[in-house]
């Protein structure tokens, strides 16, 4: 048995699973998006029509799609920088020489990451309840009127962003922490001797050294945030006034609520195309900054 033959034996189970249960359906999804598969077609395949790009065209003309797109972009554009900022701050704090009980803090700050989205989303819904939630209670204590966090279209998405940041910042924090630990201490020593203060050290040593890592974290976080679904599904059900409807939620509703699989596939592929586009731009952007 040659090593080559053995290798194929080794990789075939995994490749088979990935190929059959992921790549094949993904390709099929493209085909599906070119039809008008719906409930009628589910009942009787004879009711299926080939429509070419009509689904995509219709999507582009549907205000709800643009609303979902806008919501998702809002979530990404605000959420990613905030999330990364918080992660970076937490990592810097943990790395600081003055920090104590590092292991405890690291664990505590990471804990939200491993929790189940559904469970903590339920908690969030109660914490932000307009009348009985703790957040409004605390705000009332400092004299601010109660905010209708989940019922006011202006506040619903920020609340979800806050939720996503809270839940995920620990993940990037760990990665950035590793990056910070890899920066040689003598760089900072040299800068301090030259008279640079902390902020200058941060700007001129920390940030540039972290550049590649920041880029990777940014891309991964962006890709992840584009796939916003569980949070609006559990907390707001896409409302109020569909201000938290994300593209993936739209796909879920079209596909598994109304069984318009053709349209749902078109939504999924549009999201994929968008994510690819944005990721490429981000990569280009970071690469040119790096040079």
């Amino acid at each position, binding site marked *: 048995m040659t090593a080559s033959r053995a*290798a194929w034996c080794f990789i075939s189970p995994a490749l088979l699973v990935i190929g059959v249960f992921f790549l094949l359906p993904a390709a099929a999804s493209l085909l599906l998006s070119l039809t008008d598969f719906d409930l009628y077609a589910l009942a009787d395949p004879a009711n299926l029509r080939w429509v070419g790009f009509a689904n995509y065209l219709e999507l582009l003309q549907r205000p709800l799609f643009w609303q979902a797109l806008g919501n998702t972009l809002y979530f990404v554009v605000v959420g990613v920088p905030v999330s990364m900022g918080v992660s970076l701050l937490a990592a810097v704090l943990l790395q*600081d020489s003055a920090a104590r009980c590092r292991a405890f803090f690291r664990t505590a700050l990471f804990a939200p990451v491993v*929790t189940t989205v559904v469970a903590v989303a339920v908690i969030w819904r109660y*914490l932000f309840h307009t009348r009985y939630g703790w957040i409004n209670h605390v705000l009332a204590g400092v004299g601010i009127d109660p905010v209708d966090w989940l019922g006011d279209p202006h506040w619903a998405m920020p609340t979800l962003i806050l939720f996503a940041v809270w839940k995920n910042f620990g993940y990037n924090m760990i990665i950035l922490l590793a990056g910070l630990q890899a920066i040689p201490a003598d760089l900072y020593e040299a800068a301090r001797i030259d008279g640079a203060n902390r902020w200058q050290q941060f700007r001129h040593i920390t940030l540039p050294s972290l550049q590649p890592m920041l880029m990777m974290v940014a891309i991964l976080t962006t890709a992840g945030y584009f796939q916003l679904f569980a949070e609006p599904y*559990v907390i707001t059900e896409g409302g109020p006034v569909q201000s938290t409807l994300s593209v993936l939620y739209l796909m879920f509703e079209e596909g598994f609520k109304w069984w318009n699989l053709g349209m749902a596939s078109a939504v999924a592929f549009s999201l994929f195309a968008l994510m690819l586009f944005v990721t490429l731009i981000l990569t280009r952007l970071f690469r040119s900054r790096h040079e």
Partner: protein
Amino acid sequence: MSVPVSRSDWAGVLVNGALVGFAVASLAPLVWMLSVSFMPAGEASSLPPPLLPSAPTLDNYRLLFSRMGIGSYALNSLLIALLVTLLSLLFNTLAGYAFAKLTFHGRERLFQSLLGALVIPAQVAMMPLFLLLKEMGLVNSIGGVVVPAMASVFGIFLVRQYTRGIPDELLEAARIDGAGEFRIFWQIVLPLLKPVLVTLATFTFLGSWNDFMWPLIVLSDSGLHTLPVALSNLAREHVQDSELMMAGAVLTVLPVLLLFLALQRYYLQGLLLGSVKG
């Protein structure tokens, strides 16, 4: 270089104070969840919102186990997570090792294309996958959740990264001695991979336990529901029973939190390994 004592004190207070603030923000919702789960029904919806239960009770948990059957949901979650972890561990390790140490035609190109597949969001494949599983008779069954998760590009990547650290001479020596490829894998490589196996197992178990969207779609029969799916159903049906919901949330979150605490070293290690490109 000497620093004035008061400045380092001030820095210490600031840094540790900020860290305490972060920790409070991270843990407070979870602690509150625990607290509310012990409150009698209706207490959480009163003004001012209470922080601690006035008369701690296990009623909510009792109700969940007796009337809502949360025990079976937990068992479903456990069964699925265990199956997925064991099977994917096997498949991913085999493949990861092969990509790292066994030469074959087109190895690098194949691996690169697999990495490319990471870009495709899982949701794109969901609907045709549903139809495919329906044809195979796996919809509305445990298999429908387990089978598509039996291998993952991330898992293969992780194992490959780690395996590359194993010296080739070790494997060559074994080959010269006449050992077959599978023998080498099973007896020599696998023991060396223990750390990454634990890491991958932790990752996979946590991921599977917390998985929400796919089980929601595939499992129709409520008897098959996993904890996250059951909890989301309860949250829609019993929206006014916050104490009950919090108890359900505790039961969903506690196992993975404990698992994480026990194995956090491996988990965090794996996180770094997977993120830092080889």
